[in-house]
């Protein structure tokens, strides 16, 4: 019996010791749990407004507060802008009843309030007894007094939000009790919170700046595309007029031509056509960027088009001391649904490239078919290309590695060609055995295509 009686106090002490240890763990656990929630919010939320709202809500509910709010410090100034607050029901009722508006359209000069000024200047946390002590410069004191009473405010804690020694905001807690009544957990959690919130807010603000910069870039890009479009139209008018007159002169509309003059005008015509083709590429690339490239699909045969193009480009090939060897199909090919003008441009670009990038030798143009596709191939004996160039070739402004010294053009032809062919549900590709071994450019179009639309939105198309 004596032993039992003696051991009872020991058991009680042991119990209390275990409780104390468990309590320490519980405090740590609660703090970590709250911080984990904040980290999750920080990871999943990028918008500064939503981030502030979620963080404020979580902190207010977990720490049983009347109000939690974040203010963003504007630049290097002492202007502070409120983010959406989290408020208890009664605090929110009081805010509404008094008609107090705290939103991001407002900006407060914190230097006008001693407490806020000190928090910002010294980057240290402070307490105030009420909102009246903090905001009477901007809100009628009688309203703030009512807010403090109806919202059950006894203490306001203000923490600076600092990252990399730079003040980015303020974290404000409205309590219905004094700071000294806060539990260990609450005090520990609050002191850890400011750092976590600062990092999360900093990330969200950076994201916001990036988003704005991205929108500005998009607007600039659109403006650039529109400028190019307008400029290209202006550029196209003179060569189009020249083309019309050259055609008329070469047809004899203005009288008989000497052979010498005819040859000179024919060469002028070829150069003028190349200029028009380049401007067309520019125009189409601009239309693609603006989502305004229109297609007009018709049932047509591709072979006469290829034949005519070969005839038209032969003088250009001859100017480069080359010859186009045309291999038409041995049998009649079926019609396909295509935008003739656009496909003509694709073939023109392929032959034109072959001429530009070949110093000598024949250029072969072949039209082949199987049961499902018609394929046009343009093979040259030019400088060829490596694998890397083959992959990059269909991207915007992409040109061969030494094109700057060996060829003209904007690097848009193959990009435009790819978009056009893909809008026909076709495929375009380039192949080469290697540097110095020539290249083959080809595209195939389906014979039985389901294309029906005449206008295609290509705003997001990017080769």
């Amino acid at each position, binding site marked *: 019996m004596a032993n039992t009686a003696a051991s009872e106090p020991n058991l009680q002490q042991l*119990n209390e010791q275990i409780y*104390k240890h468990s309590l320490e763990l*519980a405090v740590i656990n*609660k703090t970590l749990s709250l911080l984990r929630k904040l980290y999750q919010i920080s990871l999943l939320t990028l918008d500064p407004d939503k981030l502030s709202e979620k963080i404020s809500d979580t902190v207010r509910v977990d720490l049983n*507060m009347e109000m939690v709010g974040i203010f963003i410090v504007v630049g290097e100034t002492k202007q502070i802008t409120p983010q959406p607050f989290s408020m208890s029901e009664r605090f929110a009722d009081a805010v509404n009843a008094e008609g107090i508006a705290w939103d991001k359209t407002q900006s407060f000069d914190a230097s006008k309030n001693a407490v806020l000024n000190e928090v910002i200047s010294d980057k240290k946390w402070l307490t105030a007894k009420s909102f009246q002590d903090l905001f009477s410069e901007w809100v009628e004191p009688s309203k703030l007094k009512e807010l403090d009473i109806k919202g*059950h405010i006894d203490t306001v804690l203000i923490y600076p939000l600092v990252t990399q020694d730079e003040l980015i905001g303020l974290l404000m807690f409205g309590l*219905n*009790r004094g700071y000294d009544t806060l*539990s260990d957990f*609450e005090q520990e959690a609050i002191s850890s919170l400011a750092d976590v919130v600062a990092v999360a807010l900093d990330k969200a603000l950076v994201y916001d700046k990036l988003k704005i910069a991205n929108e500005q870039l998009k607007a600039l890009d659109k403006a650039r595309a529109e400028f190019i479009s307008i400029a290209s139209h202006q550029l196209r008018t003179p060569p189009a007029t020249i083309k019309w007159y050259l055609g008329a002169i070469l047809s004899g509309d203005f009288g008989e031509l000497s052979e010498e003059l005819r040859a000179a005008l024919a060469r002028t015509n070829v150069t003028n056509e190349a200029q028009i083709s380049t401007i067309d590429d520019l125009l189409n690339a601009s239309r693609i960027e603006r989502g305004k490239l229109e297609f007009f699909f018709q049932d047509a045969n591709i072979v006469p088009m290829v034949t005519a193009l070969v005839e038209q480009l032969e003088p250009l090939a001859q100017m480069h001391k080359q010859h186009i060897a045309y291999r038409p199909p041995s049998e009649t090919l079926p019609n396909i649904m295509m935008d003739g003008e656009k496909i003509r441009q694709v073939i023109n670009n392929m032959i034109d490239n072959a001429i530009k990038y070949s110093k000598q030798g024949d250029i072969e143009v072949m039209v082949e078919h199987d049961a499902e596709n018609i394929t046009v191939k343009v093979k040259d004996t030019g400088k060829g290309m490596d694998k890397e160039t083959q992959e990059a070739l269909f991207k915007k402004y992409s040109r061969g590695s030494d094109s700057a010294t060996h060829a003209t053009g904007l690097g848009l032809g193959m990009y435009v060609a790819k978009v056009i062919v893909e809008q026909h549900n076709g495929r375009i590709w380039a192949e080469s055995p290697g540097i110095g071994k020539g290249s083959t450019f080809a595209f195939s179009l389906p014979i039985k295509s389901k294309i029906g639309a005449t206008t295609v939105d290509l705003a997001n198309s990017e080769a």
Partner: protein
Amino acid sequence: MTTTTQDELAVFTQISLRIIKEQELVIGPVAWQEAKKVVGFNISDANNEQVTFEGDSKEVLNRLVEQYSRLFGQVSREVCKDAVQDLLAELPANDIPSNLR
């Protein structure tokens, strides 16, 4: 025995639940088992936090706090007080149970 208004009863109910849940964080489900032993305090549905008071609610709350402090000492009483500070701030000083002052 003092009479309790509906508003006070609502606050007392919140206080009792907050105390039990706070103790639960430290000692686990034992917190609910101990609360069930308190005279005048009925837990009809722990999962849905349905509790009722019989008799003087303020005294029942005092007994609830006492139940924990008898087993785990003064520290557990402080835990109870800390857990409900914001709710106590809503009550007139006379209505605050003595064990929570």
